[in-house]
């Protein structure tokens, strides 16, 4: 397990990205470039996006998550979003945010299992 700057951790052939705190445009841009370079460098085939640190989610954050997922997909890796909290799930549904084609799992462990399944497909 090697830790990369910006909360990106490599586990086997997968990357784990944690989103937490207040996200702003500048941070998102930096995070996206980091993800791109990490995927390139490590040849990761899968990525877990852990959002359990986010307690408040609005449509801005929802868009960012969707954007990162499509970015990673374009780079040829599967993604699973894990750790959506109950209150966040309700907010997302109430906001009408539809995570089209985004795979979700309860926690990193289940997400990892799901990721292995997706990769073998």
């Amino acid at each position: 397990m090697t830790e990369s700057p910006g909360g990106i951790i490599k586990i086997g052939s997968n990357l784990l990205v944690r989103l937490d705190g207040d996200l702003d445009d500048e941070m998102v841009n930096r995070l996206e470039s980091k993800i791109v370079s990490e995927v390139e460098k490590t040849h990761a085939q899968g990525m877990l996006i852990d959002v359990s640190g986010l307690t408040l989610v609005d449509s801005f954050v929802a868009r960012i998550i969707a954007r990162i997922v499509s970015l990673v997909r374009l780079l040829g890796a599967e993604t699973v979003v894990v750790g959506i909290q109950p209150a966040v799930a309700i907010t997302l549904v109430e906001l009408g945010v539809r995570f089209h084609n985004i795979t979700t799992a309860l926690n990193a462990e289940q997400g990892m299992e799901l990721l292995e399944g997706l990769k073998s497909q």
Partner: protein
Amino acid sequence: MENKQNVYRGMMNGVSDRAVILLDRDGNIREWSRGAELIYGYSAGEVLGKHIGILHTPEDVTEGLSSREFASSSASGCFEAEGWRVTKSGKRFWSGVVVTPFGEPDAFVGFLKVGRDLTREREREQSLQRARDEIRELSTPVIRLWDNILALPIIGTLDSMRTLRLTENLLEKIRTEEAGIVIMDISGVSAIDTQVAQYLLKTIQAARLMGADTILSGLRPETAQSMVQLGIELGKIKSRSTLHDALKLAFSMGHADVSDLSFSGGAP
């Protein structure tokens, strides 16, 4: 004048289910009606001239309830409240009181106080509230069927408040039980219109975001028919007519270890 006095007496004593009490500006009892006697147990002779505080609980006396009542009554022309009162025998009862200042503005005389025994109403209201809470508790049960399979039987009508509570309960349970599959049994739902379908879809979507898939079960043929007629689409959501079939499907979805079934038999 004689006549007016009689009307007044009649009013004071004709109402036996209300305590009608006249107070002077200092809160001393000046008139004591028949109803007051029945409710409080004191005869007029025992209380005339005494301060109204003898009917209050010691706590209320310490807190200066009567001055508060008089102040708000004088300020707004009428004061209404509910609270504990004490009878002659020391028994407490729940009373609803209305305090009105009377006399001309320039010749203020005192206060008219009308009280009622609301103990029974209060008890009824409380037991009703308890029953409501119990029903609310019962109305959103989430049952763990297997390692990571939850069942959510829905009975009765769904409104937005109930759906929200139900969703919150379900999501919390998904997290604590690490459930991957939810079987939502709707055989107890009599009718599904566009609104109710919307509620169910929201719950299913929220569960999906938490990583749990939902299988609908118990959809009655006539309900299915009316849903189709209403144009309600359930998208990719799986549906089975019975709980049995839904559970079978849940096992086959690979989230559960079915081999446990053969030898453990009971709950894991």
